[in-house]
């Protein structure tokens, strides 16, 4: 079964069976776990020791693993404990320079850019096969570094990575320019050419998926890449990039720099020899990236930024399904999703029932060591996020929202937070306006469609929205009225390689995934020549 099927079955099954992470096979490991664990106990046990060693901690430049020019390293931490997993070479501007030189040479001299698209496709397909083969190692690194449930990494994210790379492999030999009708006797064609050296800066919440969203289309279009991973999660990308090289990717085509935003990230965004920068992360950092691009060489920019996505439950919705989907929309991945459904708008006629059930669902959420079977929620990524989320929870209480459940850390080690539900949330409260990026659900009440449209759109963000209704007219009206890049109707977080994703307003620029993502990595060249005595125009 493909990962996309798995996701969609997972969603549909969950809507029917109350466990959003139930496996395709029918025996939901989480539903099995529900009776065994409670939010109070699981996190206190001794952390499970991962089954693998960390193999790669250096920078990957020009096809070789190398130390940072400065010799510096930084620790990457296990969010279950806050202790170091490994010390990783810390890339800075000098390392970015080296990586850009390697990528530039690979772009200018080949063989990557000079081979046929068919050959590039074959390399990407081989890489996908290798990733598939090393599914469990990659998933283990992902969980260890990020804290996400192992089953989520192993059964959804790594398979989706494979699906994404295969999808883009299929595009490599189907990138078509146009022949263009001009108002005159001219023969006009457009060539779609790779843009050059792409700088890509990815976040820590889905390290591998963000790698695939960025690297997949860039390589399919024939670019070369300098990828900066998040300092919280450098490990899986190094391993995956090695597999790309094993698959035959030439040296210098994909360079991976571990490091920090203000140093390595800024060096990429402001580099004079990087032709394009793609960034996923916070809106504030996105602004800096755009500014640096403007101040340096006017490189083109793709941004996928924050959100405060509405999840709208209409009067006619199936309440049980909506509760489960809204729960998933917010709590999935510890609430660390840019498109999290963080404003749950519920129609007043079903509000009380919804609140009661949403609270009950949050109470049942199984939090604990992400390596343990049956766990739905692991720790937050790091102490900074952890403290920030707790601060927002305090702000929610202080501003008068009703704390229905959760609201505090779980255990005394690592960065676990109890699933938290606020009701009676007002639009002007901070928890209704800011992206919290944690397991904090805010439930708001609405009366009619026009009102909820206005309120849902009253945000600087525009990443995604969820709509739950059985009425096709309501669905269509909301679909068009919401100023967001993705509308999920009676589902949420349904991702696939073919479905474009990106934001309106301050949630970003450009679209990733699908055919649209290719635009981010292609230049269009118009070729014009006179036609003498043409048979037709």
């Amino acid at each position, binding site marked *: 079964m493909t990962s996309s099927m798995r996701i969609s079955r997972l969603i549909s099954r969950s809507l029917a069976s109350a466990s959003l992470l139930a496996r395709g096979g029918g025996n939901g490991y989480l539903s099995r776990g529900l009776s065994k664990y409670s939010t109070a106990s699981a996190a206190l046990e001794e952390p499970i020791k991962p089954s693998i060693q960390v193999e790669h901690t250096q920078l990957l430049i020009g096809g070789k693993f190398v130390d940072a020019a400065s010799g510096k390293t930084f620790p990457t931490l296990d969010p279950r404990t806050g202790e170091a997993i490994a010390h990783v070479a810390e890339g800075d501007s000098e390392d970015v320079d080296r990586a850009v030189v390697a990528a530039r040479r690979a772009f200018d001299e080949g063989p990557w850019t000079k081979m046929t698209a068919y050959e590039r496709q074959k390399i990407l397909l081989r890489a996908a096969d290798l990733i598939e083969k090393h599914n469990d190692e990659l998933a283990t690194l992902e969980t260890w570094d990020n804290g996400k449930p192992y089953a989520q990494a192993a059964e959804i994210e790594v398979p989706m990575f494979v699906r994404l790379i295969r999808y883009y492999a299929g595009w490599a030999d189907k990138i078509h320019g146009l022949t263009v009708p001009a108002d005159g006797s001219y023969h006009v064609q457009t060539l779609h050419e790779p843009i050059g050296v792409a700088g890509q800066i990815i976040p820590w919440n889905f390290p591998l998926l963000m790698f695939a969203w960025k690297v997949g289309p860039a390589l399919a279009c024939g670019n070369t890449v300098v990828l900066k991973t998040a300092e919280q999660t450098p490990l899986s990308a190094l391993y995956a990039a090695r597999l790309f090289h094993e698959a035959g990717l030439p040296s210098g085509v994909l360079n991976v720099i571990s490091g920090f935003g203000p140093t390595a990230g800024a060096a990429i965004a402001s580099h004079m020899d990087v032709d394009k920068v793609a960034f996923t992360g916070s809106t504030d950092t996105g602004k800096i990236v755009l500014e640096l691009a403007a101040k340096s060489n006017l490189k083109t920019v793709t941004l996928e930024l924050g959100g405060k996505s509405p999840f709208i439950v209409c009067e006619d919705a199936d309440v049980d399904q909506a509760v489960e989907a809204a729960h998933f929309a917010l709590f999935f991945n510890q609430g660390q999703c840019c498109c999290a459904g963080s404003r749950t708008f519920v129609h007043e006629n079903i509000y009380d029932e919804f609140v009661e059930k949403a609270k009950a669902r949050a109470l049942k959420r199984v939090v604990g060591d992400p390596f343990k079977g049956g766990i739905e929620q692991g720790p937050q990524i790091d102490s900074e996020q952890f403290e920030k989320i707790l601060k927002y929870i305090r702000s929610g209480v202080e501003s008068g929202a009703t704390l229905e459940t959760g609201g505090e850390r779980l255990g005394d080690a690592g960065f676990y937070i109890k699933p938290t539900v606020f009701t009676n949330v007002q639009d002007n409260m901070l928890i209704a306006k800011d992206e919290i990026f944690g397991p904090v659900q805010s439930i708001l009440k609405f009366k009619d469609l026009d009102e909820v449209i206005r309120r849902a759109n009253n945000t600087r963000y525009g990443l995604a929205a969820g709509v739950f209704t059985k009425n096709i007219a309501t669905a269509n*009206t909301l679909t068009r009225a919401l100023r967001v890049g993705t509308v999920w109707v009676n589902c949420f977080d349904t991702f696939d390689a073919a479905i474009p994703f990106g934001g309106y307003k301050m949630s970003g620029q450009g679209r990733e995934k699908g055919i649209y993502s290719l635009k981010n990595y292609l230049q269009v060249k118009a070729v014009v020549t006179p*036609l003498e005595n043409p048979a037709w125009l």
Partner: protein
Amino acid sequence: MGSLSNGHSIDIKFTKLFINGQFVDSVSGKTFETIDPRTGDVIASVAEATKEDVDAAVQAARHAFDSGPWPRMSGSERGRILMKWADLIDQHTEEIATLDTMDAGKLFQFCKMEVPSVANMLRYYAGAADKIHGEVLKTAGKFHAYTLLEPIGVVGHIIPWNFPSSLFFTKVSPSLAAGCTMVVKPAEQTPLSALFYAHLAKLAGIPDGVLNVVPGFGKIAGSAVSSHMDIDKVSFTGSTQTGREVMQAAAKSNLKQVSLELGGKSPLIVFDDADVDTAAQLALIGILFNKGEVCVAGSRVFVQEGIYDEFEKKLVEKAKAWVVGDPFEPNVQQGPQVDKRQFEKILSYIEHGKREGATLLTGGKAIGNKGYYIEPTIFANVKEDMLIAKDEIFGPVMALSKFKTMEEAIERANNTTYGLAAGIVTKNIDIANTVSRSVRAGMIWVNCYFIFEHDIPFGGYKASGFGKDYGMEALHKYLQVKSVVTPIYNSPWH
């Protein structure tokens, strides 16, 4: 056991019809002999499909389409299965290439390249299966409208014998990617590789009933396909005459959609500024490749008067050096014609050419007294009303003539009922562009010939057919467009 030269030997494993995932005898129990064109000897007896067998195959395909998993799985999943099939083909290159060489008399060296290239074509469409996009439409009224591209249903494919592997996958790959189910009738001359591919398809996980292969004859099995009431689309590659019959049968039965890739009499136009040696080589390969059994063969060669004499001299030299013989021999450039009928037809055209007053520069005879070998044959001073300038000969016979101006070359190139392909040899960009637009043909090769790629659409103008093979275009032959419209209320934009 097939008997082969050079130590090649092979078990013929699959000789029955492939219906609903099983190899079965024909309902009638009848078989026919498939012949080795090198010797005229029998390679194997193959089950012969008649109408009853086609009915059974269509029933299996219909069931697989209406109730089976194939059209209901995601494009990505179909793509995974097609990828696996491609990998299996790569593992059997030698064996399949041997079948094609034995069955069709094609060069073994070429078949060993052709088989991997069909695996690549399959991969192209495997990658296309999840990239079939409908559109969301702009309506004048307050409506939300979109298109769904849906598989057309049960497809009948009728394929010829000149490229048994390539043409099998030309048809099958995009229709499978689109989610169709199908009944494939290979040519009676070359049924063997198609059956082998069916076997590998099953191993790859293509569900039973999705791909059915029914070897047999055009008048019986082919006609049962094109006139079937429960086939939604027929895709045919072959002669223009048979193409007309297929289309008529479709019209008389259930108005099934038709795509036709038919004959050609393609011009190759060589201008004064061309490199003569390169152009002569191109012209030679243009007519002799695959013994001239190519629908796009450059069978009319027009050479501008300034270089004509030198061109003719070089061309004849090269033709005389061309090696005809057993296609398993690595140095051989041309094997036997596919069967006795084609062999005799070509020789009769050669006689016509002589009678009509064209100048025979070289060739013109059969070689040896066993098998169907014919000398590379070049006629000069060919006039446009001669049969050898008008008909598709489908053999190693070139009609060469001289022209003065570009305008004249264009006019003469277009003076044909066909419009499949054309070649232009020139260094001049204006000539290249003007002639490219002026020739009424579906494929123009400028300073090259026979360049087929998976991403390059191919198909004819005029009596050479309609509908494109290859590229994303080919998918649309196997897709229906459904428009979905619903009122929209309070939309903030239109």
